[in-house]
C-alpha cells in the first residue's frame, strides 16, 4: 500500500532539526525524550484527539490502512485455526497488535527494508510478501519461504534482537552507497533486555544511519511482564542514552502509529539519523498456541484491553466521517476472506519436501563431505522406495 503522507508539524521526530552528533549541532537533551503520554490521535471511542505535534493522516490513507487492519485480524484468526487443525506447527499471533503490524509496513517505500520478528507475520504480508511463503516457517517445510530481496523484507527473526544489528548493517551499506533507503526494525519489549538491542541502537547512532527501531511493547515476554524487564520510565526513554530521540505512541491507534512512524521514517530519510518508537499495545492471546496464558495473567487483565481494540476504534472513527460505507466495509471483508481462503487452501495442500535440498544451500558449492552425505541419504531413500532392507544391499559390499 502507499505510504502514509501525513506531514507532521514537526514533533520530536518531525524533522531534521533535532539532528544528531554528526550534524555538529548542540542537541538539547530534552528534545530526545519521549512525550509523557503515548501519542494518540484517535481515542478508544473512535474520536479524534488532537495532538500538538502530529497531524491526523488523510482520511483516504486511514481508510486504506483500515482495510489492511481487517485483513490482518483475519490472517491471525485463520492462522490460529490452522494450528488447531494441525496444519501449522505453531503460530505466534499478533491479535490486538494489528495496528502496529499494518503501520510498520505502510510507512515504508519500495526501496526501504523491513526487519520483522516471528510475531510480525501480518506486517510481512502487508508489505506484499505472499502469505503462503510467509507461513512456510510455521508450516515447517523450510526455515523461511521468501526471498528477502524481492520485497526487501528480512527473514522473520526468531532469536531476539539479533536482527536489529542486521538492520543497522543494511542501512549502513545503503548510506555508504548514497541510496535512499530507510530500514524499519521491529522487536518486542522483552528484546529490549538483550545486549544486541543496546548494541544496535548504539551502532545506529554512532554511524548515524537511517534506521527506525520499532518496539511493540505488548507487556509480556511469554509470561514475564514488562516490570521484570525494565524499570525505565518507558522503553522509549532508552533512546536518549544512545543520543537518539525516542517517542511513545498508542499501539492500538492506527492513525497515531502512521503519524509517528511516518515521521520517524521521514526523519531518517532526510538524514536525521535513527530513532526509537515504542508502541503501547497488548498481546491479547497467549505467546503461541503452545502457551497457557492463564498461568500468569487473569481474564480480567485481558478484558481491560478489549475496548481499546485497534479495529473497533478505527471503524467507529471512519464511519463517523462517512468514509467507511457499508459497501466499502463489505469489500474489505471480502478481501480479507479471500486472503484467508488462499491461506486455508495453501496450507491444506500437502507440501512436497525435497530432502536433497538439505545439502543444497549450506555452502555455495557443496563440500566433498556434503556430497557424500547427500549421496548417502539419496541411496537410503532409493533403497526404501525399492523396499530393500539395508542389510541386503550392504552384504558383500566393502
Amino acid at each position, binding site marked *: 500500500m502507499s505510504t502514509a503522507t501525513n506531514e507532521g508539524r514537526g514533533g520530536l521526530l518531525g524533522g531534521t532539526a533535532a539532528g544528531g552528533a554528526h550534524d555538529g549541532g548542540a542537541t538539547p537533551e530534552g528534545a530526545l525524550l519521549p512525550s509523557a503520554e503515548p501519542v494518540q490521535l484517535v481515542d478508544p471511542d473512535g474520536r479524534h484527539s488532537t495532538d500538538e505535534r502530529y497531524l491526523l493522516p488523510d482520511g483516504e490513507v486511514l481508510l486504506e490502512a483500515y482495510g489492511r487492519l481487517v485483513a490482518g485480524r483475519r490472517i491471525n484468526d485463520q492462522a490460529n485455526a490452522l494450528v488447531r487443525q494441525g496444519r501449522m506447527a505453531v503460530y505466534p499471533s499478533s491479535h490486538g497488535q494489528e495496528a502496529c503490524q499494518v503501520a510498520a509496513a505502510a510507512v515504508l517505500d519500495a526501496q526501504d*527494508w523491513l526487519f520483522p520478528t516471528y510475531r510480525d507475520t501480518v506486517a510481512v504480508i502487508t508489505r506484499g510478501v505472499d502469505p503462503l511463503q510467509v507461513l512456510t516457517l510455521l508450516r515447517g517445510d*523450510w*526455515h*523461511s519461504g521468501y*526471498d*528477502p*530481496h524481492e520485497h526487501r523484507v*528480512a*527473514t522473520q527473526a526468531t*532469536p531476539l534482537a*539479533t536482527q*536489529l*544489528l*542486521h*538492520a*543497522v*548493517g*543494511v*542501512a*549502513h*551499506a*545503503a548510506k*555508504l*552507497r548514497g541510496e535512499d533507503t530507510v530500514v524499519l526494525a521491529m522487536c518486542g519489549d522483552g528484546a529490549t533486555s538483550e*545486549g*544486541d538491542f543496546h*548494541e*544496535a541502537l*548504539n*551502532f545506529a547512532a*554512532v554511524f548515524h544511519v537511517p534506521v527506525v527501531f520499532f518496539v511493540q511493547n505488548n507487556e509480556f515476554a511469554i509470561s514475564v511482564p514488562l516490570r521484570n524487564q525494565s524499570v525505565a520510565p518507558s522503553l522509549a526513554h532508552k533512546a536518549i542514552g544512545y543520543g537518539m530521540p525516542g517517542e511513545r505512541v498508542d499501539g492500538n491507534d492506527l492513525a497515531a502509529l502512521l503519524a509517528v512512524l511516518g515521521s520517524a521514517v521521514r526523519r531518517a530519510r532526510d538524514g536525521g539519523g535513527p530513532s526509537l518508537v515504542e508502541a503501547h499495545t497488548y498481546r491479547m492471546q497467549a505467546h503461541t498456541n503452545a502457551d497457557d496464558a492463564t498461568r500468569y495473567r487473569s481474564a480480567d487483565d485481558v478484558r481491560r484491553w478489549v475496548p481499546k481494540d485497534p479495529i473497533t476504534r478505527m471503524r467507529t472513527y471512519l464511519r463517523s466521517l462517512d468514509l467507511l460505507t457499508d459497501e466499502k466495509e463489505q469489500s474489505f471483508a471480502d478481501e480479507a476472506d479471500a486472503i484467508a481462503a488462499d491461506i486455508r487452501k495453501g496450507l491444506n495442500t500437502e507440501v512436497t519436501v525435497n530432502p536433497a*535440498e538439505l545439502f*543444497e*544451500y*549450506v*555452502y*555455495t558449492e557443496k*563440500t*566433498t*563431505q556434503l556430497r557424500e552425505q547427500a549421496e548417502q541419504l539419496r541411496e537410503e531413500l532409493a533403497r526404501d522406495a525399492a523396499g530393500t532392507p539395508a542389510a541386503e544391499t550392504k552384504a558383500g559390499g566393502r
Partner: protein
Amino acid sequence: MTQTTEAPAGGADVRTDDAPAPGGGSTSTFAKALNAALADSMAADASVLMFGEDVGTLGGVFRITDGLTARFGEQRCFDTPLAEAGIMGMAIGMAMNGMKPVVEMQFDAFAYPAFEQVVSHVAKMPNRTRGTVRLPLVIRIPYAGGIGGVEHHCDSSEAYYAHTPGLTVLAPATVRDAYFMLREAIASPDPVVFLEPKKLYWSKEELDLAELRRTFEAGQAPRRIGKAVVGRPGTDATLISYGPSVPTALAAAAAAAEEGRSIEVIDLRSIVPFDDETVCASVRRTGRAVVVAEAPGFASVASEIVARVQERCFHSLAAPVLRVTGFDIPYPSPKLEHFYLPSVDRILDAVDALQWED
C-alpha cells in the same frame, strides 16, 4: 622460504624448501602479507570494507590493517564501538546489502560475544533463505598462543566454528598462504572464519608481494580453500597439522630425519572444508599418523581428523592414529604455556609410539 610444486603421487601440492627463492631477494612477514591481501582486495573491489576495534587510525593491535584508512578512507576501513556482536551483526546486514565486510575480532577469546551472530545467522542465513541471501564476509581472528599472552588472548577456538555447518574455517601457516588464503576468503561467496596464528605474525619468507598480487589477480593461484598441502614429503609417518602447529610439526620432522625417519607433514590450511583426499593419500602411503594441534584435544578438530583417518585408512594403518594436542585445561599463563603447547619432543615421542617393528 617455501614453494609449491605439483606432487607426482596423489595429486597433492607439495612444498619443497630447496626450490630457488621466488622473492627475488625481497621478504615479507606474515603480518605484512595479510596487510597486503587486505589492501589489494580493497583496491580490486570497492565493496570490500574493513572494520572492527582499533583497526582504523591505529592499524590494528597487530598492525594488520596498517595504512588502510589512510589509503582508502574512513568509509572503507573504520573503528566501531567496542562491541563484537554489534560488529558481527552489522557485518551481516552489510553483506545482505551488497558489501563484502572483513571484520577483525582483535583476539580469539574476544570473539565470543559475537558467537550468537556467527552461529545463528552468519552460518545459517544462506541455508535459511535457500541461497537467496549469501553472506560474503570474512571474520579475521588473531588466534592461538605461543606469544606469552595473558588470559583471554591465546585461545584455540577453531572447534567452535568448525562444528558449525555453513562456516568455512581457514588457518594459514606460511606467509605465502596468508596472502593467497585471505584474498581467496574475501573473494568467497560464503562466510569465512579466518584464523591468523598470532605467533606466526612475525615469521618471514622470501617472496615478492607484488608478484603474489599479480598471480592471484591473473587467476593463477591454485585454490586453497578445501585444499591441504604436503608441507614436507616423507615416507615413514604423517604429521597432520594446521595453523600455528605447522612449524612445530615441520621442526619435528626435521629432527626425526636426523634419527633416520622420513616424516611427511600435511598442512591442512583449510579446516572446513576438510581435504580428506590429501590427508588420506598420505596416511595410506605412510601407514602411520599423528595429528598435531594446540587446542585442547577433547572433542577437538584433532579428534575429528583421527576419526576420519581411521574410518578411511584403517586397512593401511600399522598403528593407531595418535594426537599431540594441548591439555584439556584453560590456556595457561605465559610462564606455563610451554608445558602446554605441542613441542618437538612431544611429537617425536608420539612418533616413537607408532608401533615400529624394529
